[in-house]
Every structure is written in C-alpha cells, then in structure tokens.
C-alpha cells in the first residue's frame, strides 16, 4: 500500500457512506465526513448516537458493513486495530483502558512498542542493543511525562491513580506512538473544571506543537465549541449537522436533538 503524504489542510481521512449495525441495532447509518490534516475535529451527539462506534470503525476495531474509509489518499480494506496503529492512528478510550498492573512510566512506554525492534534474544541479554533502545525511547517518554506534568506519579501503578490522572496517562500512552491521527473518546468526562482546563491545554498544545490531527468526542459543549475547528453531530446513528462551531450551534436539527428528544 502506498500512502500519500498529506499536507496541512488537506483531507487526512475520509469516511464515505458507512453503515454499521449490530443485529437489529443500527449504530451508524450512512454517514460521511472527513478529517483534515492538522485540525481538531469534534464528534458530538446524544448518548448512543454512534460516536464511539465511529472511532472504532476508524481504528479498525469495528468493520462497517457498508461504505469506505480512505486514509491518506488510500482506500482502506478491513484491517486489524494493530494495523491501524502501525499506520499512525492512536486513541484513548471512553472508559480508561490502561494496563492496571503497570506503572505510569511503563504504560506510556507501551505506546512506543511499534518503534521498538529488539528481539527476544537481545532483550534477554539486555546490555548492548536492547538497553540502548530502551534508553532512547525512555528519553522520549520522559518528555511526554514532563509535558503532561505527571513526573510525580512516574512509578505509581496506574490502578492507584485518581480518574483524572488516569485519563492523562492514557493520553500520554497515545502520544508516545507519535500518531498522525489521534482519536480521543471523551477525554474530559468525569473531570472537574481545573482538570478539564488542563486537558484542553494539552490537546491544543499537541495539535499546535506536533501538528497532530485530533478527532475528539466530547459532551461538554463549551469545550467543544472552544477548541474544535469543525464539529460533526450524530443522532441515532445518522449525521444531522457538520461544520464550524458557529454553524452547528445555529443548526435547528442539532438544537432539537439536544433540547427535545428526551435524551
């Protein structure tokens, strides 16, 4: 497969007419949208609208029954999540999915796994190749730890951390992969105001400094309208709005979905 290099502002990923059902439940019906390189793209919608399912399709965890996904100018065939990861798609989860038995440092180090090549034998012998590689990646991970301001919990098993910090570590693990496209599923859910502000700052900084394209799902409208370049709105699996925040805010269908409907 040959992926084209995508310049900022061009389409990085395009979803065309995808539909996904689980038995009788139609999670996504005939949705198309695209994500431009370098932008912050939000997906919003009431509970059960199909937002998480959309991210799951993008990173190869679900396979839509209809429609196509084009990534970097290349139509993607059904792929496994680890293949999507290898192509530069990283994500965080709605319910934190960290490795509970491991420390913050080790969790973030796992994010670099695709870049670490030492085999079993050189890892066993350690001194020489494996150690050198480990140190190289450790340096990168320490930069992420500094960036996310979590130096103090470097060695703490993540199972013992409060929820807000766990979300931060999970972001760190995704960043460690140096992704081209970062998918964030409700990165601020369950956080207090101060934690939300920190998280917003991190997201904006990542987007700014590394040029990482970000697609995020978020329920907090204030946050979404503040930080996103474009917003797509899903309701009952269908797309009901798409555009810059001001357009979406003025969209009557969107207002109805949020105010009416009893969600």
């Amino acid at each position, binding site marked *: 497969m040959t992926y084209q290099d995508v310049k900022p502002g061009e389409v990085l990923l395009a979803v065309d007419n995808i539909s996904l059902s689980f038995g009788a439940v139609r999670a996504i019906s005939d949705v198309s949208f695209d994500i431009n390189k370098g932008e912050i793209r939000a997906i919003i919608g009431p509970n059960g609208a199909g937002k998480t399912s959309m991210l799951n399709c993008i990173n190869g965890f679900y396979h839509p029954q209809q429609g196509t996904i084009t990534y970097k100018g290349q139509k993607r065939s059904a792929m496994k999540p680890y293949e999507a990861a290898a192509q530069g798609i990283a994500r965080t989860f709605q319910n934190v999915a960290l490795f509970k038995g491991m420390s913050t440092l080790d969790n973030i180090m796992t994010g670099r796994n695709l870049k670490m090549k030492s085999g079993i034998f050189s890892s066993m012998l350690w001194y020489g190749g494996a150690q050198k590689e480990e140190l190289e990646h*450790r340096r990168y991970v320490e930069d992420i730890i500094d960036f996310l301001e979590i130096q103090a919990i470097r060695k703490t098993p993540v199972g013992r951390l409060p929820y807000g910090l766990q979300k931060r570590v999970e972001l760190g693990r995704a960043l460690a992969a140096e992704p081209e496209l970062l998918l964030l599923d409700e990165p601020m859910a369950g956080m207090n105001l101060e934690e939300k502000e920190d998280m917003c700052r991190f997201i904006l900084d990542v987007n700014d400094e590394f040029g990482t394209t970000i697609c995020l799902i978020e329920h907090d409208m204030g946050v979404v309208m503040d930080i996103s370049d474009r917003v797509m709105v899903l309701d009952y699996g269908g797309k009901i709005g798409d555009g810059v925040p001001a357009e979406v805010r003025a969209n009557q269908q969107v207002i109805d979905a949020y105010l009416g409907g009893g969600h």
Partner: protein
Amino acid sequence: MFYREAGQFKSSYKEDQAIFPILQDRVGIAAILLFAYIAIPFVMSDYLIGAIMTPFLILALAAIGLNILTGYAGQISLGTGAFMAVGAFSAYKFATFSIMLGGAEATLPLVVTILLAGVVTAIVGIMFGIPSLRIKGFYLAVATLAAQFFIEWLLVKVGWFTNYSPSGVITAPPLVILGFEFNTPAEKYLFTLTFVAAMALLAKNLVRSHIGRGWMAIRDMDIAAEIIGFRPLQTKLSAFAVSSFFCGVAGALWAFVHLGTVEPEAFGINRSFAILFMVIIGGMGSILGSFIGAAFITLLPIFLNNVPPLIGWNIGVDMIAHLEFMIFGVLIIFFLIVEPHGLARLWTIGKEKLRSWPFPY
C-alpha cells in the same frame, strides 16, 4: 541497617533502569549469590544439598517459566509438568542420539543438549499455545490440562521417546563439561545454581524489556494492547515459547541433574499444580517471587515434619500431610483473593515501609 534510597540520586535514566537500582538490593543479591556459591556447599550436608537445594533451584526455574506465561502474560496453564517432561525426554533423545551417531566421545556438549531440549519444548509450547488466541481463562486452563494428559500419555505409549526402555524409565548420561564430571551433590548443585542464576537474569531482562511490557499489556487489557499495536498472535505465542523454554530446561535439569533416572510420571499433573502454587504463593509477575514460592513449597513439608516434634508436639504422619494441604489451600485462597502478587509483593511493601521509616510522610 537502613534500607532506603535517600541520598542515592540517579543522574541518568540508565541508572534508574538498572536491574537493581537501589544499592542495598545490589548488596543483597551479591550476598545471596556468595552465600549460595560458597557457604552452602561447605555448610550443608551432601544429603540436604541433593534433597533440598538442587530441586528447589530447578523448581524455581520451572516457576519462572510458568510465571512468564501466567504472571506476566496472563495466560493460565496447567501443563507445566508436561512441558518439563518434553524438556527431559528431548534432552535424553538428543544425548542418546548423538552417542548413537558418534560414540560416547562425540556426544553433544551437555549445555547444548539442555538448551536444545528447551528449544524443542518451546516449539511444543507454541503448538499448545495456539488455542489461547481464541479462548481465555478457564477454557484455556482446560486446554492446557488436555496438553498435560496428552503429552504424558504419548511419552508412556510411544517407545521411541524412551529408546524402547521396557520400564519406560530413562537414565541420564553422566554430567560432563569439558572433561569435568559433575558427580557429588555439591558439584551438581553448583552446576544447577549457575544455570538457574543465569536464566533468572535473562528472564528478568526480558520482562523489563518492551517484550515483557507487551505480555503485561495483553494480560491487563488485551483489547487496548491490540489497539496500541501489539499483535495478539505474536505476543501470546512468544510468551508460550519463552515460558516453555524455561520449563523445558527445568525438566531437562530435573532428569539429568536431580534424579538421574526418570519416568513420565515424575512430570504428572501434581507437578503442574505444585508449580502453579509456587507462582501464586510466591507472586504472579515476579521473578523473585518464583524463588520465594519454590522455597516455600519445598520447605513447608520439611518444616512440618521436623518442627512439631521438636516442640514436643507429636502429630502423626498423615496429620502432617493433611496439615500441608490445608496450609497450601488457605494460602492459595488468601493470595488469590487478597494479594495476587504473593509473598514477593509483601516483601516489596515491607521494603517501601522501610524506605520511609521512621517518618512515613
């Protein structure tokens, strides 16, 4: 004696990543090794060395093997005994086959024989690990149990494995390295110690590398592990391979160094369970714990046999056996429910307390 890292500032990630970053740990390990190499052969009787120390070390190696699979990679196995048997019998086949080909002088070097036996076991382990891609937990345990019975049955039924020995018993060749023959229990113990210490070091390196992190990631949350790029197939099968390699080497040592003559029954389901208990009691996901667990399970029966009479409490032999089962049972339930990281974890907590003692804040 203070155990703390205060004042030991690590100026580089390299130091922080050293295998034993705290000075007292390094001193401790060095002291244990010195003790094991120098004091034990002099102080302990040949009988105790042969009956306790050597089997303890070999079982610890098997426990490391199982710990890699179950403690680190989260794949439960009840086939450890069978994998040890594969190691023992393939070492036997390699040794006797090379003698057959080239006469006694041309026999493969002992260390090569043992390592090759480990490789064969790794391959067998991979084969029996394939179901783990589809099934988990209880069902995987049952599948490995099937492996246990199948391999045992095969080794008893197919004469080729024992070179058609009528009794099904195999006899190991003499232990010779570069012309030196390991004869006395102390010599055999030192040979085992070297082998086991070296392999424990390799295991420790592996579990702290990115490969070990992959195993733990699959253990803690397999879906997330796959989504960040670990391939479930490679990750699980590499754990089966490495784990079986260790168990195979342990089996070869058990046959060649500890027992000398051995039959498949020595590697039955009881052996599998004993090693699983070592891992649970010692601590899942801990190399040190594998040693602690092996020591515990080897020593408890001896302790029960000797201590009650000493304090004038005469309990019968079967009472001791019952007591043994009861203590194991209670401990296993305790550790499974309360502290899955076993005795090794209690040791770590103790160290953490000491580190901040006497001012915890």
